[in-house]
């Protein structure tokens, strides 16, 4: 048994996971089956808002293969079951019950009204047609402003309002900064803007699916979920299944992006049906169902006011948000915009800050976590308005950022929103990015194109961003009324033969935990990478856990693994000392070997594992076997940052946007596996760019989702995206032993404003100061033409061309 020599952490290891994924041996939930398995299909409302007068299921029950048909009254006769919202953001937040199936009214198109159980999926789906529902259409309310208008139809009549909650942070009141109104009224320059965050669909590639087997001593549930542990607890709480009688397994999961951070009606329904019939059942959705009924993301209107001195020093920031929750509250839905509250001030030293968020109900699919959750929205808002402020001041946008950002020597830095950023070096990342990008060269080319009235103009977009990763610390998230802790658990079991099983509570859905955790453990214990097996996604093997979302896996879960390994080494040291008849302090541990200091007497950790297993000769008070458990609850979030630069060519005649180059330098602290990191950044960029240019969930005026398939919802393909130049700086986090910060969301958070800033920058001299997302050719073309009309034609140097800006502050 030889110990590894090269450190594993930091190595671009190709992934352990790949072997099964590239050969089609993957355990997707829909690939699994059980003897006697029955299949579910769900009848969904075609109306966005309607009263259900009656449902006739008698005909459907006679259809071939059909075993049962259930409505709300069958599954939940007293109407007591509600899907949980675990993040009540204010004490008076309105939390209407979200039923498993709609009983009297449907509140969005796609809400389930009945479920068919049949021998095959096809038979179940066929029988849906035979169910007769008598709907009485009700007035529909769509759009945030409409929902709050006087006399608007109400989504939930009994609440008397579509207003859900109002959450406010004020730096004056919190004592973390000054008073914003004073800052604004005393400012030399004030820029005010309204930005829209269009509604997006997470669109993980594996549709959601779950299978329930109620026939054992425990109920076993397989689900394509990001959150098996949370699901288990929530199912126990909402359905009264004793927690120890439920086992949840998330086998291989095909992407999530927050879209599978949920406890969904279909999972609950499957549990209820399986228990009722005493037979295993499976539900797998079609893509159209995903689009319609799996939660959406974003959907905010942001009113942002920024105050500054003429020299560019920002003096105050005020953010008023409206956030569309859809028809019900999702698991963490209301908390999503609140996460943004802490990120609007971004990397800047802002002396006064006010944030107010109104959450609103509409007759649409609910919104909830989506990659970045709150932070992309905030980053977009601040990075867009910084560009608009720069234009108003006639300042180079990068110079404006440099003037206001937190300097390297100022860390740790407590922001106006009350967070303490542990470490960062915005200068280094920016310098590297500007060089890779050829910032000055592109600015020169931009000017040349403007000078010659080139029909294709060049724009440069900047996004210097930070985010908060690693959700935990439990006590902090508790103070925000989040309904769970944020810790993560890990166990390490050294087996008799010296091989290692690692159990993590952070179950993965494509992030490569099996590889990264193996690298960490290989270094910590000094065992070969190949000798480590990582187990996750099963509440039986990983009894404790809080799952994977918000870039918390490595920063919280990975550190739990380190803690567990440290305990294993400590125990092994005690045993080694006993066997080698020395004091534990006399032992050096390196690369899997305990050596008696100053001698060549040594033993390996694998040998100690075997001794611990035999237990023939252990020190007093030491339990047999070599294993340990750890739970890590960090003391702070982590704060990755970076500089993203985008060069966009905009055809002023067609509105077409071509991304010419995209450079990002991210600082995510120390890196465990650069290959995985690079992949995460690429994927994140694609998703953020998609928001800027392609994707939008659109409802027509009756509340029908018109972008309900991949034919209408423009998920970018390989042909729609460029290759990216990605690089890193490494400023280790000071709050965890690996120095890691998290990377899952960085690309998405930073790229959207970089791209939109580039598009606007390309045509700003034509009188354009904003283009709503997604910046489709039509929108870009229209903006250019509007701008030219306002500003007096192509080629006019209209000093920023701030056609519609409300720069009311002006000089005092």
């Amino acid at each position, binding site marked *: 048994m030889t110990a590894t020599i090269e450190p594993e952490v930091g190595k671009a290891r190709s992934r352990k996971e790949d072997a099964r994924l*590239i050969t089609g041996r993957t355990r997707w939930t829909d690939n699994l089956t059980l003897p006697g398995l029955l299949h579910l299909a769900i009848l969904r409302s075609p109306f966005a808002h309607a009263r259900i007068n009656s449902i006739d299921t008698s005909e459907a029950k006679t259809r071939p293969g059909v075993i049962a048909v259930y409505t709300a009254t069958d599954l939940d006769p007293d109407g007591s079951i509600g899907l949980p919202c675990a993040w009540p953001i204010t004490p008076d937040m309105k939390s209407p019950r979200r039923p498993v199936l709609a009983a009297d009214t449907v509140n969005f198109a796609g809400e389930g009204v009945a479920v068919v159980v049949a021998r095959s999926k096809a038979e179940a789906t066929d029988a849906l047609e035979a169910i007769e529902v008598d709907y009485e259409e009700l007035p529909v309310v769509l759009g945030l402003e409409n929902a709050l208008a006087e006399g608007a139809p109400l989504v939930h009549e009994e609440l008397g309002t579509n207003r859900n909650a109002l959450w406010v942070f004020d730096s004056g009141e919190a004592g973390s900064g000054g008073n914003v109104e004073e800052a604004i009224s005393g400012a030399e320059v004030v820029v005010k803007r309204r930005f829209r965050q269009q509604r997006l669909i997470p669109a993980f590639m594996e549709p959601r699916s779950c299978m329930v087997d109620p026939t054992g001593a425990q109920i076993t549930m397989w689900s394509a979920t990001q959150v098996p542990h949370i699901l288990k607890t929530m199912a126990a709480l909402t359905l009264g299944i004793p927690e120890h009688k439920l086992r949840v397994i998330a086998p291989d999961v095909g992407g999530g992006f927050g879209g599978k951070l949920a406890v969904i009606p279909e999972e609950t329904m499957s549990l209820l049906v399986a228990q009722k019939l005493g037979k295993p059942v499976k539900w797998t959705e079609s893509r159209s169902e995903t689009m319609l009924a799996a939660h959406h993301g974003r959907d905010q209107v942001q009113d942002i006011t920024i105050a500054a001195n003429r020299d560019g020093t920002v003096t105050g920031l005020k953010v008023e948000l409206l956030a569309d929750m859809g028809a019900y509250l999702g698991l963490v839905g209301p908390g999503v915009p609140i996460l943004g509250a802490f990120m609007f001030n971004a990397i800047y030293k802002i002396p006064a800050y006010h944030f107010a968020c109104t959450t609103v109900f509409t007759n649409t699919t609910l919104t909830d976590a989506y990659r970045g959750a709150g932070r992309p929205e905030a980053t977009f808002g601040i990075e867009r308005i910084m560009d608009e402020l720069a234009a108003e001041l006639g300042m180079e946008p990068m110079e404006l950022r440099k003037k206001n950002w937190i300097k390297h020597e100022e860390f740790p830095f407590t922001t106006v929103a009350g967070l303490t950023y542990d470490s960062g070096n915005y200068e280094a990342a920016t310098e590297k990015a500007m060089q890779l990008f050829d910032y000055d060269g592109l600015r020169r080319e931009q000017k040349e194109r403007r000078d010659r009235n080139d029909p294709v103009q060049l724009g440069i977009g900047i996004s210097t961003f930070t985010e908060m990763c690693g959700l935990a610390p439990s006590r902090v998230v508790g103070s925000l009324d989040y309904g769970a802790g944020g810790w993560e658990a890990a166990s390490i079991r050294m087996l008799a033969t010296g091989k290692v099983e690692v159990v993590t509570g952070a179950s993965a859905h494509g992030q490569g935990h099996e590889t990264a955790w193996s690298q960490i453990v290989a270094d910590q214990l000094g065992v070969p990478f190949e000798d480590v097996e990582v187990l996750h996604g099963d509440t039986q093997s990983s009894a404790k856990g809080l799952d994977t979302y918000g870039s918390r896996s490595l920063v919280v879960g990975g550190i739990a693994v380190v803690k567990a390994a440290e305990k294993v080494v400590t125990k092994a040291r005690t045993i080694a000392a006993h066997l080698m008849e020395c004091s534990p302090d006399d032992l050096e541990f390196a690369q899997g070997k305990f050596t008696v200091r100053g001698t060549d007497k040594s033993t390996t950790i694998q040998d100690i594992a075997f001794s611990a297993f035999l237990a023939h000769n252990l020190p007093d008070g030491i339990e047999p076997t070599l294993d340990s458990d750890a739970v890590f609850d960090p003391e702070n979030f982590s704060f990755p940052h970076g500089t993203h630069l985008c060069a966009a060519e905009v055809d002023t005649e067609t509105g077409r946007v071509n991304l010419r180059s995209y450079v990002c330098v991210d600082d995510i602290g120390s890196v465990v596996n650069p290959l995985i990191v690079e992949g995460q950044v*690429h994927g994140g960029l694609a998703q953020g760019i998609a928001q800027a240019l392609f994707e939008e969930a659109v409802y027509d005026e009756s509340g029908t989702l018109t972008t309900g398939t991949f034919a209408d919802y423009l998920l970018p393909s*390989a042909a729609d995206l460029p*290759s990216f130049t990605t690089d890193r700086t490494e400023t280790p986090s000071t709050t965890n032993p690996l120095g890691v910060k998290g990377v899952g969301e960085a690309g998405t958070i930073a790229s959207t404003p970089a791209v939109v800033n580039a598009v606007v920058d390309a045509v700003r001299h034509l009188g354009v100061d904003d283009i709503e997302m997604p910046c489709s050719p039509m929108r870009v073309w229209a903006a250019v033409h509007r701008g030219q009309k306002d500003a007096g034609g192509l080629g006019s140097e209209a000093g920023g061309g701030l056609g519609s800006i409300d720069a009311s502050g002006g000089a005092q």
Partner: protein
Amino acid sequence: MRITVTVDGTQYSDEVEPRTLLVHYLRETLGKVGTVIGCDTSNCGACTVHLNGQSVKSCSVLAVQADGCEITTIEGLARDGQLHPVQQAFHDNHALQCGFCTPGMIMQSIDLLADNPDPDEKAVREGLEGNLCRCTGYQNIVRAVRDAAQHMSPGAGPEAERVDGSGVREPSAIGGE
């Protein structure tokens, strides 16, 4: 209707309903669950297989249309424990994350390389236009396909996977596990 097909080298004969899609036949009747379903509009490409050596979206083909045909799925690519060069290249270039799109991507990439043994970046991107991936941003997929091209003899596309075919590459060992 009764159909007879050869899937990954094994002949099957089954009674199928006329409306059964090939992907459902593969998954439900044959248990070939390596081929997956990502959409219901033939847009995502997750279900791509080879039908007589040509890539097709198996959700857009009826099982009865495959009668008498030879089908290769992701499960039939590796031979004698050796990965297909495209599989190997996906692994080597970290061209997958969750892996749900991966079987379809690999099958499509093989077909692409059969048509164009040395594609440039643009050709790869255009050749994969019908296959969606939500995780990778495609960059490493493009890299993998171009890398695979360097390890395959020209024309060693779907032809070479024919069970009776003699197309030979230099396969690398299955890595990772």
